[in-house]
């Protein structure tokens, strides 16, 4: 996550993508990726910048599971819960991560370090079980390796 103000991210996006409906999802994605989530204020600013209503921006933001309107931690761990991973023990990995982090899926550690989520198939089923940590895929996980990877995140 960067310390850049949200207005700067939005302006930079608008300069690249334009100020219209088409830019809405692209700017939302940029803000979410840089700040971990998209706040009410950010959505209002995007609406103004792209000349659409705030309700429209909200409705786009809430449609996509990779965009969060709730604050998230510095790192995002997304564990696949779909069938091939489930067959190779993703439930045990989830339980281990939840225990290690002291949070349930969908929550963020109190120190703001990690948000733990489950996700639909991430296309790594030849190496199940798998997870994405921010932009990095990790596969052939065991409860031990998964916890080790997550403990190593600053």
């Amino acid at each position, binding site marked *: 996550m960067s310390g850049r103000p949200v207005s700067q991210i939005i302006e930079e996006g608008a300069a690249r993508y334009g100020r219209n409906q088409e830019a809405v999802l692209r700017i939302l*994605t940029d803000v979410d990726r840089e700040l971990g989530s998209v706040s009410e204020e950010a959505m209002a600013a995007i609406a103004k910048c792209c000349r659409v209503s705030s309700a429209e921006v909200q409705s786009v933001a809430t449609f996509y599971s990779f965009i969060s309107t709730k604050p998230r931690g510095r790192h995002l761990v997304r564990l696949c819960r779909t069938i091939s991973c489930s*067959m190779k023990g993703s439930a045990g990995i989830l339980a281990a991560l939840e225990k290690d982090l002291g949070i349930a899926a969908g929550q963020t550690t109190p120190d703001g370090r990690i948000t733990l989520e489950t996700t639909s198939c991430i296309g790594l089923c030849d190496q199940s079980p798998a997870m994405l940590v921010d932009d990095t895929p990790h596969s052939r996980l065991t409860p031990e390796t998964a916890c080790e990877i997550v403990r190593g995140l600053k």
Partner: protein
Amino acid sequence: MKKEVLLSANQPELGSALRKAASMTSADVAFEVRNAKLQGRGGAGFPAGVKWVLAGGASGAQKYVVCNADEGEPGTFKDRILIEKYADRLLEGMAIAGYAIGADTGLIYLRAEYPYLVPVIEEAASRLRQAGLLGRGIMGGKFSFDVEIRKGAGAYVCGEETALLESMEGRRGEPRNKPPYPVNSGFRGCPTIINNVETFIAVPHIILNGADWFLALGEGGDSGTKLFSISGDVERPGVYELAMGSKIGDLLDLAGAVDVQAVQVGGASGKTIPGSDRDRVLSFRDLPPGGSVIVFDGSRDMLGVLENFMEFFVHESCGQCTPCREGNSRLLDAVHAIRAGSLSGREALAPYLDLAETMKQGSKCGFGQTSSNCFVDIVNRFVLKADGQGGN
């Protein structure tokens, strides 16, 4: 039968297919692809060349070539591997498509789950630009074509082509009514072709070797080869390329599947067959091959498998139409009731099988029209069968 073309170690020289295409008329390029009977590799199997001919003939100064790299079907990862290894061929295939339909812009809709493929595609694109195979005045001629990446944001339904267009236009990924079809009114209302990654990558081979060569690759009247992502209970999960029309048994043997109880072909919305049906054919004539093949051995509880799929569908439905939104939830409830023992037997399950049919008929897009397939297959072949009440 195993047959490697797209995955062959001997790849034609990059740009040679585009050069050959540029020496043909646009219409002839589209005709060649149509004559090769290249069926879309994303799951629906619509003939790619027919789309190209239609889009080429559609009126409009601006047209678009869109690559569907949303690959969200559970158990599918062939497009990831294709992009990792052959992003340059994908771009060449898209450029040939641009030449065929008269488009100067290509867009790759890449799923959010593959952020690590962005630099791979960008690096390949700059290599093609340096070689004069992308950009203004390709190979010194009049044809210009370039590509950009549009990232998805984590919604399976955005793989449906009109939802994908909505998403690229910055809106919720809710499928559109058809008609109009994208070949007439697609991205920004302009004529647009949308094809899967694998479809585009097959194109340079077709242009270089000709439609007849491609037709001859298939078995039993099918054309070309097909990539399969195989996972689950197999010794060697991965991507395999077989002649289209091959038997499922051949693929199971390649991947090392033993004690096979069930195989699901075409992902969660595909068909689920007993492992003993080894002669069933991987073809749009029999088991439509999207790309995913998931194997379940004798130890698997098929009701648990069904539960996992129905949870996926409940989570991923866009909620726009009732049969899909409500139907998938009710089928998931039924799975829970079967598990709890409060729902059993053909008679009690009949209303749910009817509901599955209603969803097939009444849903707006391919999602709701196919999401009940696994319920019907697994309930009929595995759940009722275990009760001694099996259908076929």
